[in-house]
């Protein structure tokens, strides 16, 4: 029993760390950190982290490879979009160009990394300089505002960046609550179907008690978040995008052949090659996908900031990398998952917000963030050592 409790603790270390950190800030800020507005901001402000981390996770899985250029690409793509909309071009045309721009950047970097074998660190460092420069060229050194209402509404910017309340609650946003309940019911249905399916085929199932605890905890967290959001202005548009991206990537990493190959290449490239899988295609996919996510993040950031300016996205690459590593991705590749990455991203977000509310100097905030990353990795290394 004791051993089992230890195992659970180990598996969900970062979840417990997140809970502890949240309790700490709740105490220090007099509960301010869990006000509806702040829960809402935590999601909207960090939308780019979730999206970029999803792309970064795939790169890291292939062998600890990172993409340093994403911050610059976010700025580059955001800049292109802002300028196009400033010239009154069609909004969907602009969005398409931004997405394709991200993909092309990914293909450019992926080509050098996968086919010419330029080390990812170098190839993307080059990209970091080059695309920052190009972003400046596009923006001609100025901030460009976005006034297109459709764009702002769809991608979660400006004042009205919420899913409209169809059901018309008075103080509570009813749509938000209903969606929260639907999510929980869908989750419950999935768990039940999965259990029945496994039982009928004679596979081992997790003990009912464990499953129940897990379900109750997760459902409670989901309902609590939606309740908080309903108390504010409802579902932020950014949350819709985050949810779509995270669900898609959870699926890609666990259920598709490409997902499997990402882990395989990171685990043993030579064995994967001799199994008839071309590792070059896998690397290329990871970086093209990273470009796509950088493009989407560029869109979300431009919408949130209602414009683009030459200094956008500085350090974003580090936020994404940190989220993945805090979330348990291996720096050597082959290990990591979307759930862990989400916890990592939320943990960083909570620490950022908590310190801001407490009024801690921005410079010290960076120091704390650095220490958190280091501690997370030290813990990971030590717990892995004990296993052996």
């Amino acid at each position, binding site marked *: 029993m004791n051993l089992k409790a230890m195992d659970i603790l180990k598996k969900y270390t970062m979840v417990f760390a997140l809970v502890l950190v949240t309790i700490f800030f709740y105490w220090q800020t007099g509960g301010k950190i869990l006000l509806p507005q702040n829960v809402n901001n935590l999601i909207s402000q960090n939308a780019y982290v979730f999206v970029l981390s999803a792309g970064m996770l795939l790169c890291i899985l292939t062998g600890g490879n990172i993409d340093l250029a994403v911050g610059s690409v976010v700025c580059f793509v955001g800049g292109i979009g802002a300028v196009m909309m400033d010239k009154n071009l069609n909004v969907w045309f602009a969005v398409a160009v931004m997405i394709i721009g991200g993909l092309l950047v990914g293909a450019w970097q992926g080509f050098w990394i996968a086919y010419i074998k330029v080390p990812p660190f170098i190839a993307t460092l080059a990209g970091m300089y080059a695309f920052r420069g190009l972003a400046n060229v596009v923006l001609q050194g100025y901030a460009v505002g976005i006034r297109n209402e459709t764009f702002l509404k769809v991608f979660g910017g400006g004042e009205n960046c919420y899913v409209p309340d169809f059901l018309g609650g008075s103080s509570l946003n009813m749509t938000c609550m209903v969606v929260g309940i639907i999510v929980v019911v869908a989750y419950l249905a999935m768990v039940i179907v999965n259990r029945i399916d496994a039982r009928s085929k004679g596979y081992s199932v997790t003990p009912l008690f464990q499953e129940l605890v897990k379900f109750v905890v997760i459902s409670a967290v989901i309902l609590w978040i939606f309740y908080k959001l309903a108390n504010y202005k409802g579902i932020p548009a950014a949350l819709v995008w985050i949810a779509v991206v995270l669900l898609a990537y959870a699926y890609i990493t666990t259920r*598709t052949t490409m997902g499997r190959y990402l882990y395989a290449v990171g*685990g043993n490239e030579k*064995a994967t*090659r001799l199994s*008839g899988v071309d590792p070059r295609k896998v690397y290329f996919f990871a970086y093209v996908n990273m470009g796509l996510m950088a493009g989407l993040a560029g869109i979300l950031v431009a919408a949130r900031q209602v414009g683009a300016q030459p200094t956008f996205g500085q350090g974003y690459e580090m936020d994404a990398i940190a989220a993945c590593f805090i979330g348990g991705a291996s720096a050597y590749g*082959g290990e990591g998952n979307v759930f862990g990455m989400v916890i990592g991203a939320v943990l960083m977000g909570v620490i950022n917000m908590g310190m801001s509310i407490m009024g801690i100097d921005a410079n010290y905030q960076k120091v704390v963030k650095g220490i958190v990353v280091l501690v997370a990795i030290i813990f990971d290394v030590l717990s892995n050592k004990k296993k052996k």
Partner: protein
Amino acid sequence: MGKILLEMKNITKTFPGVKALDNVNLQVEEGEIHALVGENGAGKSTLMNVLSGIYPYGSYEGDIIYDGEVCEFHKITDSEKKGIVIIHQELALVPQMSIGENMFLGNERGKKNAINWNETYGEADKYLKMVGLSESSRVLIKDIGTGKQQLVEIAKALAKNARLLILDEPTSSLNETDSKALLDLMLEFKKQGMTMIIISHKLNEVVYVADKITVVRDGSTVETIDCHTTEVSEPRIIKGMVGREFTDRFPKRSGVEIGEVNMEVENWTVYHPVYAERKVVDNVNMNVKKGEVVGIYGLMGAGRTELAMSIFGKSYGTGIKGTLKINGKPTVLKNPREAINAKLAYVTEDRKGNGLILSNPIRVNTTLANMKAVCDRGIIDTDKEYQVSVEYKDKLKTKTPSVEQNVGNLSGGNQQKVLLAKWMFTDPDILILDEPTRGIDVGAKYEIYCIINDLVAAGKSVVMISSELPEVIGMSDRIYIMNEGKFVGEMKASEATQENIMACILQSGRGE
């Protein structure tokens, strides 16, 4: 009866959940070569780790009595001070550094912040001479072969004033000639009064050098055989290791009909991928028929693996020339994927490096080379994948609690079975097995041989590359002999003996 140099008394060592050593007793006389044999996981290496202080005093029960006194070793340097030096199976040398630097790594000559290079290289040269190496100690490790690297390890041990030398599988990565040289060196040291413990899987070597043989099974010492008073033979030792009579090391294959030629290789030449002027495989011609096991025997470095990998979708070498015919049709295989589609499978000799993803479960490893069989448009059917991996686990009798177990946690024999399962799942007609039984114990070997027999009984062709002569003779229908990139002989297994195969290799060497 000479003086007892080392006595290990009632040693018990437990790991969480496992008793690795159970009341082990070992006596080593001064000036003898004492062999430890046993199946993988029997506890030989654990015992030596206890002795050398890798598992510190207090983490085990029992006494170590060395040179008449009870010893408490807390770390390796404690035992080294007493002259107990262990040479591990994996070479622990830094390739980019010179022989001399390696030899005194952690034990540098001169003052603490001023290394005396003259003394380093001078001393190093002295020890190199003792092990019969003519290289200068300034040569880099990466520029000498594995055989010589093993000798450097021994010289390094001598530099520590070794009195009791422990060699863990010293010949596992050496070819026959280098192995022989190493064993002779051990006999030479014995004459000079050195005491040695050797752990080895290769029983012929054990019989060749050992004065006494202690058999370890399931964490206990079963018996100690004195080679001077009793007649020792390999079957006699195997009997002790597995606990039963092992009359047939190779299962009989009966009633398998040998059919038409399935794969044919003509004038196959391969050049080295880096040194493009060097021929690694030189004008090889071979064929394999349906239902046939063809053995390729050759010493390490003969070009066997290179030949196999170049056939398997050009996964090795440059400037590959020659014709490959499958079912009589000339075929060009540009990459492993095309080779797999042409019903070819290559089971690598290096299962950890080239074969398996150790950090992934059995299920994932089993399907990796044939994902499309468990997929629908890029989406994995997890049910099917699970069923397939369980099916192969049962078929090959892989010992594991579940197919969700990470392959890295399995023993060598079970890893080999997972690797075989992976390739059998691609449904090949022709399997090239490269050293299929390397580093696995006697019982698992027998099971692998049975799997090979089942494969040919199902009409498949097997090409088995091996550097173990008895295995090649025992398992093959026909044998090709390879030396220095060329095929130097071909014979029926019924006509082959260890002597005429070795003669074949020697003659080809002289002909040059």
